[in-house]
């Protein structure tokens, strides 16, 4: 079972790097603050975004049907997938039908969730991620470590080395401008050659049957305007009722994600170009179940801006891979256990409950409260480590028995100060590895009260 604390400890071991990672993400968080501050109605916007999404989730089946109707009327073909396997089969079927062997894909966390790339590669199809960050991690055969900045964990020296090996850039080159230019040349070739384009979907509009894809690089547009087959993959929660609702979300999305006022391209697709085909794959994969849960429903509000990751003091210091989940960070620690509570049992605990994610989230998901609720579920499901379970039981028992509590406290106060250091600070004591224990006072507060305060 992957363990967050273990992987996090490994990441933290390299202090310089962990600090560098923390600072990079804090910088993004600061840019978000600056952008949000320029909008006096920021909190009002968040409120509306949350309301629209809550409404959407509460009317999801109707809206999905409305969307399908309107999209179909525009000549878009809509497909439904219960799970990742169905999703991948649908996509592959479409590509096969068109004899496509070379595909370009713009960023889509959903296709990562479905592990679409390896699936298509097994079937002899070349699939190239075209978001620069995602292309970088793809070259390494790794998943993104962040949902907006997939290669945020990598240093330019490492990217330079990778490009040198795979794209033939000069050895030792680390200038981002130079490296990005090399990627531009490499990827433009791929765009030109591709026979189909796959994109994710940021928002799908029930009322019009259209959908919106946001990028900064223009890769979704290049990937879909040069060939005749566009396949857009979306989770069923990506729906919004009206086109006008986009105003709220597009104002929030990029500002929350990177501090930009809007992404460079916010492209609205409403039907295929003449002679071309447009397909949409609607994926459930556990989402419909979440919609039934009062505790976790709100997590379907997520617009994948990653602000919760950027602000999370744990994510910033432990890196995306420490979560061993397609979506890392606070929202990933909610979605992960929903999919597989056993494998992701440590994620809801990878959180100090500081609540920063909840305050930063543009769609007002009560992230830290959901994480707390997940801890209960994990306990109920029996995935809590025995040591934690027992110590909490003993503590509760002790706290219900005030006399015993007083006695134990007194014993500890009279013994601990005389214990030799090695008994207090050793491998058994995780507190004491890098911290001193509190200095034990002679008297407890209640003992002092007894002596000094004439209470009735």
């Amino acid at each position, binding site marked *: 079972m992957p363990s*967050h*604390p273990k992987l*996090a*400890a490994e990441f*933290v071991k390299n*202090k310089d790097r*962990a*600090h560098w990672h*923390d600072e990079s993400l*804090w910088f993004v968080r600061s840019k978000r603050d600056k952008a949000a*501050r320029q*909008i006096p109605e920021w*909190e009002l916007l968040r409120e509306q975004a949350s309301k629209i999404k809550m409404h959407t989730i509460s009317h999801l089946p109707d809206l999905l049907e409305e969307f399908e109707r309107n999209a179909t009327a525009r000549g878009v073909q809509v497909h439904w997938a219960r799970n990742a396997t169905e999703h991948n089969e649908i996509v592959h079927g479409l590509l096969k039908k068109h004899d496509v062997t070379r595909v370009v894909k713009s960023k889509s966390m959903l296709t990562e969730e479905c592990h679409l790339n390896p699936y298509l590669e097994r079937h002899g199809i070349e699939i190239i991620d075209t978001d620069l960050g995602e292309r970088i991690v793809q070259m390494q055969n790794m998943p993104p470590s962040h949902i907006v900045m997939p290669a945020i964990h990598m240093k330019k020296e490492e990217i330079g080395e990778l490009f040198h090996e795979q794209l033939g850039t000069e050895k030792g080159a680390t200038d981002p401008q130079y490296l990005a230019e090399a990627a531009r040349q490499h990827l433009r070739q791929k765009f030109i050659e591709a026979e189909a384009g796959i994109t994710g979907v940021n928002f799908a509009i029930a009322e019009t049957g259209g959908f919106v894809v946001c990028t900064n690089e223009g890769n979704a547009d290049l990937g879909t305007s040069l060939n005749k087959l566009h396949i857009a993959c979306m989770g069923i929660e990506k729906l919004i009722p009206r086109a006008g609702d986009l105003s709220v979300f597009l104002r929030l999305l990029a500002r929350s994600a990177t501090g930009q006022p809007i992404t460079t391209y916010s492209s609205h697709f409403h039907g295929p170009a003449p002679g071309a085909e447009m397909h949409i794959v609607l994926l459930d994969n556990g989402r419909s179940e979440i919609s039934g849960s009062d505790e976790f429903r709100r997590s379907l509000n997520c617009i994948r801006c990653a602000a919760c990751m950027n602000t999370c*003091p*744990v994510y910033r*210091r432990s890196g995306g891979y420490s979560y061993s989940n397609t979506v890392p960070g606070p929202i990933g620690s909610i979605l992960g256990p929903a999919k597989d509570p056993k494998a992701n049992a440590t994620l809801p*605990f*990878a*959180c*100090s*409950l*500081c*609540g*920063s994610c*909840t*305050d930063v989230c543009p769609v007002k998901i009560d992230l830290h409260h959901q994480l*707390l609720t*997940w*801890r209960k*579920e994990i*306990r*109920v499901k029996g995935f*809590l480590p025995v040591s*934690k379970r027992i110590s*909490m*039981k003993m*503590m*509760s028992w002790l*706290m*219900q028995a*005030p006399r015993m*509590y007083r006695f134990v*406290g007194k014993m500890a*106060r009279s013994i601990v100060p005389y214990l030799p250091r090695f008994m207090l600070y050793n491998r058994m004591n*995780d*507190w004491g590895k*890098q*911290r*001193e*224990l*509190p200095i*034990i*006072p002679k008297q*407890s*507060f*209640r*003992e*002092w009260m007894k002596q000094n*305060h004439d*209470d009735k």
Partner: protein
Amino acid sequence: MAPKVGLFIPCYIDQLYPQVGIATLKILEHFGVDVEYPESQTCCGQPMANTGCTNEVGPLAKRFVDIFKGYDAVVCPSGSCVSMVKHHYAEYFSDNAEYEELKAKTYEFCDYLTNILEVKTLSGRFPHKVGLHQSCHGLRELRLASSSEIMGPPFGNVRELLESIEGVELSQLQRPDECCGFGGTFAVSEEAVSCMMGEDRVHDHEQAGTEVLTALDMSCLMHLDGIIRRQKKPIRVMHISEILVECL
């Protein structure tokens, strides 16, 4: 008649930081409050709740309400424990008028001092550079001050109170309200990240010239103090009530 206040001293303050309880008591009494300390209190159940062990919390929550329901107000020098009582007890009481009433009259100590007793300044002096650590639960659960994530006019009574005290200079931090990394059992189960977070906070205060590090929550301070003493940093740690009591 003076309001009768039940003093809620969280278990770890009772056992490890009695001086914080004493300071809180002295300040309240100084301002004419009739304080009573119910002997049978122990713990609000937060450690169990935060570990997901809700079965273990229920009995403690019920005890808590029984012990404190008779007072005009319940005051506690820990934002975290107050937030537990105010925001996380609901599931143990369905439609319980006693709990609802208690919830409304439970206050974090500084909240009570500045908002109910309306104390705006203190007459004493405290000639130090003070670093105010914004404990997360006081900030983002109890909203005792504005958090940096939420856009709106800044506010914060404690900051204002401290600033009003002669001699106090507040440190300007790079990250004014980042979590210290204590997080209850998180401090142990995610020891590596927890300590790095704590170190980073300490470093920020060190850079800002903090002489005395304070907070509304002793638990954050226990963690930060542990790091400060291990690394032998020249920063003194005091709970907010320990500072205020010196300024009466």
